[in-house]
């Protein structure tokens, strides 16, 4: 289970999160939605200790991780993987080496064995043919798929996907959706997915939370979101230009 309790976070004078509380049950997929700059990426980075809250607490799997030291967070990060919004592949290494790196560092595998396992992970996102290429030679969508493969190397119990389907063609996006679904159904992964992709949201989400103005505006099932008469929520999920939303 993942719990955010009353998270506040500011950057200088800019108050991004003003008391966000959110719970993700074991084995659920929660989609986080909200307009650009709402603080979705900021919120999820707290979970793996890349950002620290000004106040509030974060509970992961029953353990308060809010103020763990950087060294203590390494153990948490092996359990809880993150796919960044920008794919963040290491551009000095081939695709294969990018995915093999966690195997080499954490399982002390030989180069061949690490590469073999990395190819298996690349196959999950249909990227095994690009193994010898370099991140700089690939487009955004392909890089993002490799980043997903890399995040899954440590067999995490919790995964954060920050906009995994943005920049992907519809077929690749549907594949990623299927992958997230199978992670949940087959391996019991608990996931937080940040997304703008309404089709993914309504086809995969167990629950949805919308961040608006530094708070959770609505937290509920896809049905509750469809039925919501909150003008902000309905403007967002129907993609209307006119409405009460402040941008």
């Amino acid at each position: 289970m993942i719990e955010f309790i009353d998270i506040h976070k500011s950057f200088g004078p800019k108050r991004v999160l003003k008391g966000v509380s959110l719970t993700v049950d074991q084995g659920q997929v929660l989609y986080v939605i909200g307009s650009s700059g709402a603080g979705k990426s900021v919120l999820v980075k707290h979970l793996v200790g890349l950002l620290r809250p000004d106040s509030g607490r974060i509970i992961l799997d029953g353990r308060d991780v809010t103020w763990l030291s950087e060294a203590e967070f390494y153990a948490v990060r092996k359990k809880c993987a993150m796919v960044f919004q920008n794919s963040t592949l290491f551009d000095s290494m081939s695709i294969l080496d990018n995915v093999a790196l966690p195997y080499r560092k954490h399982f002390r595998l030989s180069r061949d064995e690490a590469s073999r396992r990395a190819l298996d992970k690349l196959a999950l996102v249909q990227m095994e043919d690009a193994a010898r290429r370099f991140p700089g030679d690939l487009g955004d969508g392909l890089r993002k798929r490799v980043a997903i493969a890399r995040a899954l190397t440590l067999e995490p119990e919790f995964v954060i996907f920050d906009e995994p389907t943005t920049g992907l063609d519809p077929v690749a996006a549907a594949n990623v959706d299927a992958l997230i679904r199978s992670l949940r159904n087959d391996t019991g992964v608990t996931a937080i997915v940040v997304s703008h992709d309404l089709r993914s949201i309504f086809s995969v989400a167990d629950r949805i939370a919308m961040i608006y103005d530094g708070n959770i505006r609505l937290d509920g099932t896809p049905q509750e979101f469809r039925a919501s008469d909150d003008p902000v929520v309905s403007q967002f999920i129907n993609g209307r230009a006119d409405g009460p939303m402040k941008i």
Partner: protein
Amino acid sequence: MRRLLMAPLSSVGRSALGLAETIGGATLLFGRILRALIPPRFDRDETWRQLYGVGVKSYAIVVVTALFVGAIMVIQTAFYVRRTGATSLLGYGVGFTVFAEIGPILIGLMFSGRVGANTTAELGTMVVTEQVDALRALAIDPIRYLVVPRFVAMMIMMGLLMVLGDGFAIIGATLTADTLIGVDPSVLISSLLESHLLDEYLLGLGKALCFGVSISVLSCWFGLGVRGGATGVGRAVNNSVVANAAAIFFIDFVVGWLFPVGL
């Protein structure tokens, strides 16, 4: 009026704060590097890659610099040598200045401009493109994975390049002495060998290793501290080059003061 007076003062204050921040931050980073070295737990593959990269990047510039350093030392002394006929002192003069002082400083400066600036730019780019955060998210410590291999590679390479540079400086001096003032290479070499410059040679090597430490620590510190996109990277590279040069002169002064040779 008040503002006119305050502006220079506050700028001095800002520089002092910046200096304190750099020294403090770099010292902390140095401490973390040492902790990763004892017992040694850092990435071997990355260290080999860095050793190779640093060597390839810098050997040519070191050879060229060294050739010119040797040549210039001869040109500087040519006038006196010709007037006094003291050709037997030429080897001593060149060796003494090059080994202990000019060689390490110039090679250190070239190295920091080439390898140090490159390191700051590379790490800075990795920071702004979130590759460093991605490492942390994969539970890989950026100090052990990125910084320590660069530290080890730069220190080893500064030592090797210094040996290489000393050699090429002598070659440059010999060639110049031969063509410019007609001093036979054998005269210069035997004068050099008779001057017993081992202390100077070792001092220069020691300085080079210290420069290797300061260049790697400072350039990594500036690289990892980048904020704010491409302009941030540019600013950091700039600061890194300036700080490295200042550190080289400062270390040269301190080491020369602690270990006076040839007196």
